């Protein structure tokens, strides 16, 4: 199963970088297969691992995939290590899951799905049920990202069952959140809300740590269903209850920014994103916040702010997915400022990246953007145009849920006092973190 997916990717690879990355992954998994079936034999496998190391060396620098593959190679010699606990196997399963997550970060969800399926099956057959449950949980998400709804449902169900076997409520409840995300990604908002509410009741009794994730998922459903104020309230209420060190804080802030943008308050959204960009401990989250800020700049801010962010991002090291987003947002901003040739070049770059890496959602969005550019060029009205009515992209959520399609403009209408309060709280939060705040929102409201 693994080989077929990898071979398909290899045959479809359109660049050396992609080919090398996939080939190195395939080589590592073949050595893993051999060690799993026959045990680690230094005479056979040491050579193979050295060859694989050379393959990994060919993967383009600083890639998470490269680091993850190196980790697997380092763990494989410990596969048969004797002891009460089979640490070598557990570490290898962990390393494989890290590889899957790195593939996901690069947007290569179909390979990630297969890697998780492999770990899930092997760990279960090996009696390592907890690792199997973890792998199934991750597989559920990877399958959802591939729009393979049935596989995702089955993976989440299995994660739930295995979570019950090992007695890990966190896995069970997260599997239910995954199920709910599947439901609302396909438009079943009432079903998702019911499932999330039932899961929240269970979490209160058994595993309160998962409650914030459920709240964030509920906010996502509310936003997708057009209940923007409820979404904002849920996400902001969640921020109040989270500790600064909690990894979910920044995820909640990024999602809150999306809800605020959808509601029509991009300046407040930008404030939330600036907080994340400056304070989030994980580079991945900081980068995503910056990209979302760039999206807002492309749609709503003056050209100077847009150009400044564009120059900053151009020198940042981005994943393939992020490079595609960057090119697309650049095209949108450049069109807005009537730089049609540059916009066309950026859109073509986004289209090329999206096609090469099978990021189909971006293919559709970029094709729409190319049409917008052609239309704006012919009508010569771009300079006076506000943000596009069918703005294709709304930033990227960190919770992995499908972005909503309910963008609303900033109309200039009066903002309800409750939302105004949230905006001011965000401003205070920013002021507390940064002595000299440049996040003056009051004027924006």
């Amino acid at each position, binding site marked *: 199963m693994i080989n077929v997916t990898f071979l398909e990717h290899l045959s479809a690879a359109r660049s050396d970088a992609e080919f090398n990355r996939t080939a190195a992954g395939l080589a590592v998994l073949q050595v893993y297969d051999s060690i799993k079936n026959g045990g680690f034999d230094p005479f056979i496998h040491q050579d193979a691992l050295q060859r694989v190391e050379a393959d990994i060396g060919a993967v383009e620098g600083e890639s998470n995939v490269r680091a993850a593959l190196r980790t697997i190679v380092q*763990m494989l010699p410990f596969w048969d290590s004797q002891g*009460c*606990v089979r*640490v070598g196997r557990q570490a290898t399963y*962990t390393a494989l899951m890290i590889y899957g997550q790195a593939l996901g970060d690069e947007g290569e969800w179909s390979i990630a799905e297969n890697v998780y399926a492999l770990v899930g099956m092997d760990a279960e057959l090996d009696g390592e049920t907890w690792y199997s449950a973890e792998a199934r949980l991750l597989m559920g998400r990877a399958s959802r990202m591939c729009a393979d709804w049935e596989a995702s449902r089955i993976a989440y169900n299995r994660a739930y069952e295995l979570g*019950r076997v090992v*007695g890990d409520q*966190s896995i069970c409840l997260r599997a239910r959140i995954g199920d709910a995300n599947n439901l609302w990604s396909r438009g079943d908002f009432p079903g998702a809300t019911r499932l999330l509410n039932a899961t929240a009741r269970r979490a209160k*009794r058994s595993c309160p740590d998962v409650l914030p994730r459920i709240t964030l998922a509920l906010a996502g459903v509310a936003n997708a269903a057009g209940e923007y104020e409820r979404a904002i309230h849920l996400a902001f209420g969640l921020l109040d209850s989270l500790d600064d060190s909690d990894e979910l804080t920044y995820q909640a802030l990024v999602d809150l920014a999306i809800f605020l943008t959808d509601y029509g308050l991009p300046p407040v959204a930008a404030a939330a994103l600036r907080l994340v960009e400056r304070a989030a401990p994980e580079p991945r989250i900081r980068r995503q916040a910056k990209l979302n800020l760039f999206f807002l700049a492309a749609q709503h801010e003056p050209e100077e702010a847009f150009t400044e962010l564009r120059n900053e991002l151009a020198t940042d090291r981005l994943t393939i997915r992020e490079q595609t987003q960057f090119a697309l947002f650049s095209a949108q901003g450049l069109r807005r400022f009537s730089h049609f040739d540059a916009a066309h070049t950026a859109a073509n770059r986004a289209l090329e990246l999206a096609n090469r890496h099978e990021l189909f959602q971006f293919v559709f969005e970029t094709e729409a953007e190319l049409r917008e550019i052609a239309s704006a060029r012919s009508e010569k009205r771009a300079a006076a145009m506000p943000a596009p009515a069918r703005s294709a992209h709304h930033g990227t959520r960190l919770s992995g849920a499908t972005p909503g399609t309910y963008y609303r403009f900033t109309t200039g209408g009066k903002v309800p006092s409750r939302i105004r309060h949230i905006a001011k709280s965000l401003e205070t939060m920013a002021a507390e973190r940064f002595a000299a705040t440049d996040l003056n929102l009051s004027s924006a409201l």
Partner: protein
Amino acid sequence: MQSLARVHAALDGDGTVDVVMDARDLLARLTTPRDACLVVDPALITPDDVANIASNIAEFPRAIIAYSSVTTAALESAVVLAQSTAARFVFRGTPNERSALERALLFAPDSELGPTLLAILNGSMSRLPTGLRERVATLFRNGDGPASPDALAAASKLSRRSLDRHLAEAGLVTARRLIDAARVTSAYRAITTSRTPLVRVATMLGYKAQRTLDSQLNIILHTTSGKLRVDPLPYAEAARRLARCLTVREPQPARGTLRPRRVADSGITTLKLVSDDNHTPPARRTASRDR
């Protein structure tokens, strides 16, 4: 630093964290008997340090949790740790790492109960095949391992049927009972010495409610979690009761005695009065039954 913060968060106020800066300091502190759980990052200690730690732990037993990254340096020490101690392992890099760490800290193995139980079961254990014996011993010593009979069979490289046969030949009861007893053993310390609410202990063990945990404890230790917390059993007594539940098959209640009997004619469920029995005519056997 991040690991330290995670351990602190996972403890959730139940206990204090004492940071030890290097292996020498750690070894010095291990020479006193204390009821403290040791959390180590194998990447920060050498295999030689691990050997020294293991010999100290043998003298002054205490629970060990290895909170490890997946690197060669960490694995070299982790392997020695797994071979020479009853450490539980949590690897960094999975989404539910925090939950795994919480469970490892709460269900850190009791340094006396497991070994005492294994000493009582020595006769039965010696009759098990090597792989299965190692897995079962790890279950009771580390409080970690396969979570279901199928997983135990898989981890021991046996079919489920062979597993049951080997257990029966060794004089042990079912694999299911073995897993349940291991679960209770791993929770013994949390029930008797922690301040974690018993409801939480039950749910973190995978039981729906405290009542379910209590019914398990009733079968295995003949007591409830509440009683255990107030008045913990001495280790020897707890181990004796665990060993009995693992080696003696309790007589099953006769079929039908727990349920009201259904009267065949009317289909109405009813209880039979003693006085009725005196007047009930003896049932006539049918010819088909005789054959």
